[in-house]
């Protein structure tokens, strides 16, 4: 599988009232061509920040540095104007968490979809009628009933679930090689969540588009992802193929996270003791060490290197044993 996106040891800082918030700390992430990658972690661990880094829409005050941020093998980091180069690399579709906020309330849905199409390389020269047909086709692909009627409506006249389908369609209109879906179903109710996720997976497969899917719901990641990267407090903890991961996570945090998933007949889930660290003065070394039951002295001083294989790589000084060793 060829590599589409590679994030290597990238850090992002934000100025905040109490000092510099070190929101991402030497983070690593890889997305292969056509691969569906789940980025999993608790609220506030930096999923949206990482997603925005890849989309090239971090807020102005964000300070980015690191080894590499590569798109299709080309590193865009260093040398200024990164943002423009990120967005110039290849078309990326964006499916945000709150679909209603992503659209202007003052324009019909069709007009806003047309705007995306107008500026995408794929369809710049389409005529009006042609463009409308293309949009309607895509709306039908995401199973929106009566696409033409929806194009004429305003965002407030359409339900949240349908609006999220609209945004998926708009993302695919760009003919992207990657879709970044940032908690695309968190704002929807459970029955609709499942429909949207299956749809996303099916379309990604059909069009051979890679997906970066962020969520704090391990179950959802299990449903649709090929691979999973677990994050804790701005650091990547473990990255593994889905089956391997769910069979035997190796990072202690990932293990506890999996253990805290609600399971039928298992009573209330266990929660992880301790609190998420603050980001202005995060713990040195492995940020999980104050809460980690397996912590060693080295954990408080050194960031653990990545070990293991490509199917399961883990950053831990004292990881849980591998599957066959168990």
């Amino acid at each position, binding site marked *: 599988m060829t590599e589409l996106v590679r994030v290597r040891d990238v850090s992002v800082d934000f100025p905040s009232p109490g000092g510099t918030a070190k929101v991402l700390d030497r983070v690593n992430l890889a997305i292969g061509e056509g691969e569906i990658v789940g980025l999993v972690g608790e609220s506030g661990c930096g999923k949206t920040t990482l997603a925005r880094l890849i989309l090239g829409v971090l807020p102005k005050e964000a300070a980015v540095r690191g080894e590499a941020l590569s798109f299709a093998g080309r590193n865009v980091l260093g040398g200024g104007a990164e943002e423009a180069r990120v*967005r110039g690399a290849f078309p*990326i579709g964006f499916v945000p968490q*709150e679909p209603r*906020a992503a*659209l*202007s309330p*003052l324009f*019909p849905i069709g007009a806003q979809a047309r*705007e995306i199409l107008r500026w*995408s390389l794929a369809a710049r020269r389409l005529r009006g009628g042609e463009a409308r047909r293309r949009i309607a086709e895509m709306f039908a692909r995401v199973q929106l009933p009566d696409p033409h009627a929806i194009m004429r409506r305003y965002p407030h006249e359409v339900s949240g679930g349908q609006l999220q389908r609209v945004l998926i369609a708009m993302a695919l209109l760009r003919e992207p090689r990657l879709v970044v879906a940032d908690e695309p179903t968190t704002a929807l109710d459970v029955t609709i969540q499942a429909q949207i996720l299956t749809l996303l997976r099916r379309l990604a497969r059909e069009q051979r588009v890679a997906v970066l899917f962020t969520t704090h719901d391990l179950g959802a990641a299990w449903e649709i992802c090929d691979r999973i990267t677990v994050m804790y407090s701005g650091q990547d903890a473990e990255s593994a193929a889905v089956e391997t991961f769910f069979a035997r996570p190796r990072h202690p945090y990932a293990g506890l996270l999996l253990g805290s998933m609600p399971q039928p007949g298992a009573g209330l889930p266990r929660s992880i003791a301790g609190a998420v660290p603050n980001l202005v003065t995060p713990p040195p070394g492995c940020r999980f060490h104050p809460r980690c039951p397996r912590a060693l002295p080295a954990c408080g001083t050194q960031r653990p290197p990545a070990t293991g294989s490509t199917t399961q790589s883990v950053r831990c000084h004292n990881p849980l044993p591998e599957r066959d060793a168990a």
Partner: protein
Amino acid sequence: MRLLGLIARRLVWVPATLIGLVVLVFVISHLVPSDPARILAGENATTAQVAALRHKMGLDQPLPVQLLRYVIDVARGNMGVSLYTQTPVAGEIWRRLPATMELAFYAMLLAVLLGVPLGVVAALRRNSWFDHVLRVVTVSGLAIAAFWFAILLQLLFSMWLNLTPVQGRISDFGPSGVTGFYTIDAAISGNWSTELDVLRHLALPVITLAFPAMATIVRFTRAGVIGTLGSFFVDYQRAMGVPWRVTVWRYVLRSALTGTLTQIGLVFGNLLAGAVVVEAVFDWPGLGQFAVNSILQSDYNAILGFTIYVGVMFIVVNLLIDVGQVLLDPRGR
């Protein structure tokens, strides 16, 4: 249909507000007893002549009766006769209306055409030198006395540079035409030297009126754009490859302008208030000058007529703004 309901609900109150306005101005103009009949009859009139005139004008009736008769007359479209010019007030207002409207129209046009883009650019370059300079300009625009600014412009452009006439609306007679807007009438008849003359007369009063209006529009547009730039859809469009200028000038501006529109009523009110004084300075033959003259001469019927007229205009403009608001924001429809 919401729209019709809105209009209906507003219109219900129009007659009551107007009657209230007539009563108010009637009370104001009778705060101090005076005798228009004596003024009208002239120096040499005998007491009997004055009494006869008073009777003819209904001034010997009790005040409430006079008020009632006036309200009924106005409702029939009769605003009475000016005590000074002896011409019907309604006709006088009608004759002067285009002059004021032409002035207000171009002032508003200039204020919007300058104010909106300047406000957007100031918002995009917040705290740049451009923003700071513009802030000084807008703060001055809201603090300057219109009559003094007018005199300043006359001094500079008319007296020193000799570019524009000091006063008036036109050098000769107005061009004949249906609109009463000299700029349009002259253009229709293809009379370009008149057109130029009209524009030179318009320039200074329009600038005077437009300056504070522009300042208001800049401030609201800037605040609106800054507020909207924080919206998530701005980042979404950026991520999805929509060029920055399209996002700003089509989507952000549209949101910001729905907010600015609510302020247009205020701007229009200030424009009319400004016209009263500015027309006096430029000897502009419009309603403002008419108001000043009739107030200085205690010409009751003229004052009442003018006030009612402005009241109607205000109510209509505010209604139009509410309607525009609903039309601009689909959520309200």
